[in-house]
């Protein structure tokens, strides 16, 4: 299971974004005040909005970071797991989806953002933050594809998505998950239950 515990998932924002990225700062601070994210010790908020294709606004937690990521010039919520997840690969993927969807859902209803933020799941980016055990190669992709397909089928539905690897070998092992239709984070969360 090595290299599979530190996963990341980015769910993109509907554009044009109607909220200013700076407004995410007080939103994230309020999450810390109430330690609002289950299973996470929320620590601090960091403004990296000046960094091109950087983490944007970053909410640091012990278990994993949440950021209003700007990579590929497309804003989205990136959950980046830092502490190891328990379970098999499928369980790890489900857990990362759950945390990311929960955070998206929370942002959509956050009073600071006033309902001006919407996410879509037509396209998502799943990544593994471990170059040693999960190098970004065709072999890794072929090896993991069956388990990825199985795990994502249970989350999104069978046969409704495609998987494509990000081919730049310098990047982390990353897979585009493209779904035939977009579900709202809340809907997918209900399917988890």
């Amino acid at each position, binding site marked *: 299971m*090595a290299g599979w515990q530190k996963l990341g998932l980015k769910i993109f924002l509907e554009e044009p974004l109607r909220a200013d990225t700076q407004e995410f*700062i*007080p939103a994230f*601070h309020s999450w*810390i*005040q109430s*330690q609002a994210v289950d299973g996470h*010790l929320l*620590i*601090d908020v*960091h*403004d*990296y909005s*000046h*960094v*091109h*294709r*950087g*983490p944007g606004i*970053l909410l*640091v937690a*012990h278990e994993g*970071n949440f*950021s209003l990521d700007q*990579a590929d010039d497309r804003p989205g919520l990136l959950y980046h797991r*830092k502490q190891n997840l328990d379970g098999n690969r499928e369980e790890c993927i489900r857990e990362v989806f759950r945390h990311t969807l929960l955070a998206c859902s929370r942002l959509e209803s956050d009073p600071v953002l006033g309902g001006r933020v919407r996410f879509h799941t037509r396209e998502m980016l799943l990544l593994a*933050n*471990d*170059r*040693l*055990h999960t190098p970004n190669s065709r072999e890794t992709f072929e090896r993991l594809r069956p388990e990825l397909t199985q795990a994502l089928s249970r989350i999104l539905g069978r046969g409704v998505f495609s998987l494509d690897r990000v081919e730049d070998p*310098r990047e*982390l092992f990353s897979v585009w998950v493209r779904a035939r239709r977009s579900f709202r984070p809340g809907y997918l969360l209900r399917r988890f239950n």
Partner: protein
Amino acid sequence: MITWKEHLGTDIPDELGREIDIFEMQMELRRQGKLDEKIFAETRLRRGIYGQRYDNGFRHDGIRSQELPYPSGDVIKGPETLWDAPGMMRIKIPYGGVNPRQLEMLADMAEEYSDGVLHVTTRQDYQLHFVHIDDTPDLMRRLASVGITTREACGNSVRNVTACPLAGVCHTEAFDVSPYAKACSAFLLGHPDAQDFGRKFKISFSGCREEACGLASMHDMGAIAVVRREGGRIRRGFELYVGGGLGAVPHQAKLFDSFLPEEELLPTAQAISRVFARLGEKKNRARARIKFLVAKLGIDEFRKEVLKEREIMPPDERWTAYLPEVPEFQETAVRPPAALNGHQPPPGFEHWVRTNVYRQRQAGYAVATLTLPLGDLSSWQARELAQIARRFSGENIRTTVEQNMVLRWVSEADLPELYAELDKIGLGAHGAGTIVDVTACPGTDTCKLGIASSRGLAAEFRRRLGAKFFQLDESIKDLRIKISGCFNSCGQHHVADIGFYGTSRTIKGHKVPHFQVVLGGKWTENAGSYGLAMGSAPARNIPEVLERITGRYLEHRSNGESFQDFVRSVGKKNLRTMLQDLLLVPAYEVDSSFYSDWGDPREFSMGDLGTGECAGEVVTLTQFNLASAEQLVFEAQIRLDDSDFAGADSLSYRAMVEAARALVKTEFLDVPGAPDTVVSEFRRRFYDTELFFDKYAGGKFANYLFRRHGSSPQSPTRDTAHQSVEESQLFIEAAHACYERMAREISGVR
């Protein structure tokens, strides 16, 4: 499951690999509570692993101080520093020089272990934030595999050796100081004479006197290149300064030698280190930098001490071994030299060239500066930049103390294309070295000592000034702004035209972030003079303070008057009067925005201030050496558990020798490491004199060493190896006890 250590194998240089293995073992010892927390704190600091804000397990969330219950519970990595709390990793880069492969590795490290951002510091280092200590051994191994060490990036040690980013290509330099900076850095790294300082020691190299260059005047030791004609040949040397420094009490460095020949550079640096270690303050951390020692002794007396030390130091061939290679220290360009060809440049190019390009001494080549906002770049940018550098600049990337990066040896004809490529990755901003290129330390973002948000204010300045940059008068454009989050001056506010440092005031029970305004510092002439403090204004008013000062300068300066001259001629009193209304704070009920800081919506609090680690922990050389002995005996125990009896016995013996050497060094600093010499010196100084004797056991523990030194077992068994480990442990305990008795006697005498 394969590890990075196995994967990298021989790519990690032996010595660095061994050091990292030892550190990993020390981490385990600390987790088990077998290594003192202060010793471990200084140990990790000397590996570049620094504490970060909130690592004491508390954070003020704007309403109350909230406990952060990390899973590691009360396991600590230093006094009041919780194990699981995120920390900072400082990566020292001598003279700021990296190659593309190294830059790519740094990018990967930021992405995998930090937050995806590389931060360039005001001393040409890189910093990663929010790093877990458990990740640091692999992080260090991966850096070591590309020739980077984090050793002595923090703690009471010789910090990163900095140098002018234009060294070697500059029009005004006497000669290229890069190879000297490199040699000095390598020579003092881990040098035994540089391990017992009361505080850090910063060295810089400059190629000339007039420019800002290496900022010699504000360094513990600043070397400025000079040449002298002797008997028809040019001789290289350095104008050497000591005892400079910023901090709360800035000192201008004093001239130590107007011409120190190049062959004397390293021995003199070593002799200065020995004097600093021997005579520098150790107890009062606020007065432990060498500037206080130089001020206390006076430069003449200090010089005498150094020269005396220089006389008695055992010769070292490394002092001059590098000199034959100096003339060969040459960077190579990847493209032929060529002038700009007159083709239509891309939009924005002209502005960029004006502020970000320096034409090299070598015709047809230029240095391009990459303006990094707040010193930050993303992992993605760093990887792309490495590719761009390979194409246009080769191996020649450096960081600057203004938190930027430079690409050197760019063919001038390539500048338009280079600009277009940089612009694509968000690194084509103009304005390097101008008023929009604001320098700021981490401040309250991540620093435990930060009082106000230096980065928040810098971002606000960038936003406001950037929007009207082209409307600004040239005299204003060229001013430099530098911001520190507190009086410790990491943002180098003393040497800015307009500097700020964070303070706090209490208004009717509410804390208000403030910045002290410091005007008229001189960046050129190697940080030629320091600015004057004008008064503290609330953070919210600081942009208006800047407007007013620059406006007044523009209106009232006489023909061509420099900003420094303007500040002097107007005078502190008048300047303060001019700012008077901006120093006032409205009541909380009237405008609560004054009660939070730039970029941080929380109500301002001083509750998050922690104990800084800039000063490191005062751990004596003896304590360090005894800790090394303990680490060896711990390793011996592991070998014993693995049934490697010969290894366990050998390590136990080495641990005793190391502990004995630690004691001998208190009297004989240069004792060689050969066991025969160590045991003989130990016997003469500590056994024959009965200094080592235990009140009840007498010389019993010393005899463990003598017996094992006299005869090593042919084929150790589990039992004999076990006995060796036990005896070694007892010997080390006795050595600790002996050292404590000595320390008590010394303090009793005092």
